C-alpha cells in the first residue's frame, strides 16, 4: 500500500487548482465567495493544517476536498484524478479513499442506528463479508480507537462527545482511506480529552499511513500535529509553509496577529510578546475588499494594498505568502496603528 502511495507524491495526493466556490446569496442577486481562488497541494502521508477564523471558508474547503461540494471554478484533483469527471459508479468507489470527519460528532451519527450499525455501514456499502464478519471487524476497529465492545449496541445519545468522535474515526477507518479531512474534530470536545483524541489521530497515521488535512481555528492544535500549515482568510490563502517555520517565523501580518492571539500561560508583566489586536470583524465574503483582502484590518497596510491583489509567491523554498511587502525575513513592520495590549 505504501509503495502505491508514493508514486504520485510529486503532484500531491490532493491538488487544489485555482479553486473558487460561490454560493448565491439569499435574495439571489449576489454571490458569497466562500473560496475565492486557492492553490495548494497536500503531499501523501503528511498532516496538512489549515487555520482560519470563522467565516474564512475552512468548512467549505473541507467539504469540497471530499466532493461533498462541487467546485464552481477550478479543480480538486485526487491523486491526479478529477472526481467530477468520473461516472456515478466509479465516483462512488473512488470517494471511499477521501473521507471527512466532522466537527459535530453527534450530528455525524444517525440517531436511530446503533454504534455498530454505523461503524459497519461503509463495509456494508462495499459489500464486504457477511453480517457476522462485518460485526467482528467493526468491534475490532472500535477497540482500536479505544472503545469497549459494550458500546457497540448502544445508541449515539448514550455516549459522550469524545466517545462519539472515536466512533466516527473508527467508521472512517473501516474504509482504509488514503486521506482524511478533519474538520475541527476536537473543537466540540472537552479540553481534557482533546489530547487523547489528537494522540489517537497521530497513532493511526503511523499505523495506516494516512494523509490528514486538519482544519481548525485553534493554532495550538494545528501547530502541534501538522507538517505544513496553510493560513486562510476570507476565502484565500495568506501563507503556506512548514509548520515550524510558519509558527516561529510567520511572514504574513495576519499569521503574526493570529499567533499573538494565542494565550500564553504567564502573568501579563512577564510576557515578552505583544498582542496584536485586529480591528473590526472579518469583512463580508459577499463583497470582499479590493486588492489584498486583509488590508482593512492589517496593521501594516499601504496604499498599494487596495489596488493590487498580492501575488501568491514563494518567498522561501516551500514557504509561500500573499503579501506585497513580506520578505524572507518576516512580515512588513507595523504602522503606528498597531495597538498594544497589556
Amino acid at each position: 500500500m505504501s509503495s502505491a502511495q508514493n508514486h504520485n507524491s510529486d503532484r500531491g495526493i490532493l491538488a487544489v487548482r485555482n479553486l473558487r466556490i460561490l454560493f448565491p446569496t439569499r435574495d439571489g442577486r449576489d454571490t458569497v465567495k466562500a473560496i475565492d481562488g486557492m492553490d495548494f497541494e497536500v503531499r501523501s502521508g503528511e498532516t496538512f493544517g489549515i487555520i482560519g477564523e470563522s467565516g474564512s471558508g475552512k468548512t467549505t474547503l473541507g467539504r469540497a476536498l471530499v466532493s461533498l461540494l462541487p467546485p464552481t471554478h477550478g479543480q480538486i484533483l485526487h491523486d491526479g484524478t478529477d472526481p467530477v469527471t468520473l461516472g456515478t459508479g466509479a465516483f462512488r468507489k473512488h470517494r471511499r479513499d477521501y473521507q471527512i470527519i466532522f466537527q459535530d460528532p453527534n450530528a455525524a451519527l444517525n440517531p436511530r442506528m446503533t454504534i455498530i450499525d454505523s461503524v459497519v455501514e461503509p463495509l456494508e456499502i462495499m459489500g464486504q463479508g457477511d453480517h457476522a464478519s462485518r460485526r467482528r471487524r467493526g468491534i475490532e476497529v472500535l477497540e482500536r480507537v479505544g472503545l469497549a465492545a459494550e458500546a457497540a449496541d448502544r445508541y449515539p445519545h448514550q455516549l459522550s462527545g469524545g466517545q462519539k468522535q472515536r466512533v466516527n474515526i473508527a467508521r472512517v477507518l473501516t474504509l482504509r482511506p488514503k486521506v482524511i479531512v478533519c474538520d475541527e474534530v476536537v473543537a466540540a470536545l472537552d479540553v481534557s480529552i482533546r489530547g487523547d483524541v489528537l494522540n489517537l489521530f497521530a497513532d493511526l497515521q503511523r499505523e495506516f499511513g494516512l494523509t490528514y488535512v486538519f482544519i481548525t481555528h485553534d493554532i495550538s492544535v494545528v501547530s502541534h500535529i501538522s507538517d505544513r500549515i496553510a493560513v486562510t482568510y476570507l476565502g484565500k490563502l495568506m501563507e503556506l509553509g512548514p509548520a515550524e517555520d510558519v509558527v516561529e517565523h510567520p511572514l504574513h501580518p495576519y499569521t503574526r496577529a493570529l499567533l499573538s492571539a494565542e494565550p500564553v500561560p504567564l502573568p501579563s508583566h512577564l510576557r515578552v510578546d505583544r498582542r496584536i489586536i485586529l480591528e473590526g470583524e472579518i469583512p463580508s465574503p459577499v463583497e470582499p475588499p479590493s486588492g489584498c483582502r486583509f488590508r482593512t484590518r492589517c496593521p501594516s497596510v499601504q496604499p498599494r494594498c487596495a489596488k493590487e491583489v498580492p501575488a501568491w509567491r514563494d518567498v522561501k523554498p516551500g514557504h509561500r505568502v500573499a503579501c506585497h511587502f513580506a520578505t524572507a525575513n518576516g512580515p512588513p513592520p507595523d504602522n503606528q496603528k498597531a495597538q498594544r495590549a497589556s
Partner: protein
Amino acid sequence: MTDAVMAPERRPGRFSGFVRWFVSDLRGAFSLTFLVALFVISVLGPWISPYAPAAQDLDAALATMSTQHWLGADDLGRDTLSRLIYGGMASLYASFLAVTIAVLIGVPVGILAGYLGGWVDAVISRIIDSFLSFPAIVLAIAVTGALGIGLTNGMISVGIVFAPQLARLVRARTLVVRNELYVDAARCFGGSTKRILWRHVLPNAIQPVIVQVTLLLAAALLAEASLSFLGLGIQPPDPSWGGMLARAYQNMEIAPEQMYPPGLAILFTALAFNTLGESLRVALDPTMKRN
C-alpha cells in the same frame, strides 16, 4: 415514575424492551388493549353476535335496552349490538384502507420532493397545495362520484384526500434530514441514493408520520362515518358505525339513546388511535429512552 423500568443495565432485545416500555405506559397499553379487543370482536363477529346484522324484527323497532336486545334495536328492529359488532369490522377496514393508501402515496412523494428538490419539488408542492385547498369531504365526494359509490371506493378517495397532508409533512422532515451530517457521511462512504433514502432519510423523516397516521386513522373513521351518513359509503343493509349514526339521527326525537352506541364507539376508537400514536412516537424514538 418510569425510572425503575427504564434502567436495566443490559439492553434487552428490541421486542422485550418494547413490551417493558409499554407496561410503563398505561395509557398506551389501555389503548392498544382496546383496539386489539375491538379487532378480535370484529373478527369473531359472526360467532358472537346475538343476531344477524340485517335480521329485522319489526315488533322490536326502536326497542330500548333489554335482555333481548342489550343495546336496543333500530327503527327496523335490527339488533344494535349485532350491527355495532359487524359495523366495527367495516369501520376498521375502512380506516386502515384509507390510511394505507394515504401512506403509500404520501410518503414516497414527500420523500422524493424533499430529497430531490428543484423543479421536482416545485411541481409536487404545487399539486399538494391545490389538493389541500379543497375541503376534504368535498373532494372525497367528487372522487367517489368518479369511482362509484361503495365503501371501498369511498375510502380509496379518502386515502387520496389524506395523502397530500402526509406528503407535505414528510417533505418538510426530509428537507431537514437530507442536510444532516450523517447523510453527508453516508454519501462520502459511497452510499447510493436509494440506500441513503432507505437507511437514513426514511427512518428519520418517518417519525411524525407515525403520529399523523394514528390521527388519520381517527379522521378516516370519522370520514367513513360522514360518507356513510351521507349515503356514499357503505350501502344498506350492511352496517357501519357512520350509517348507524345516520339512521339513529333520523329517529333522534323518538329514541335518542340509539345514537349512543355508534357515537361512543367512534369516539373511543378515535381516541384510542390518537393515544396509541403518541405512545408509539415515544416508544420508537431511541433518544426518548433513558440510558
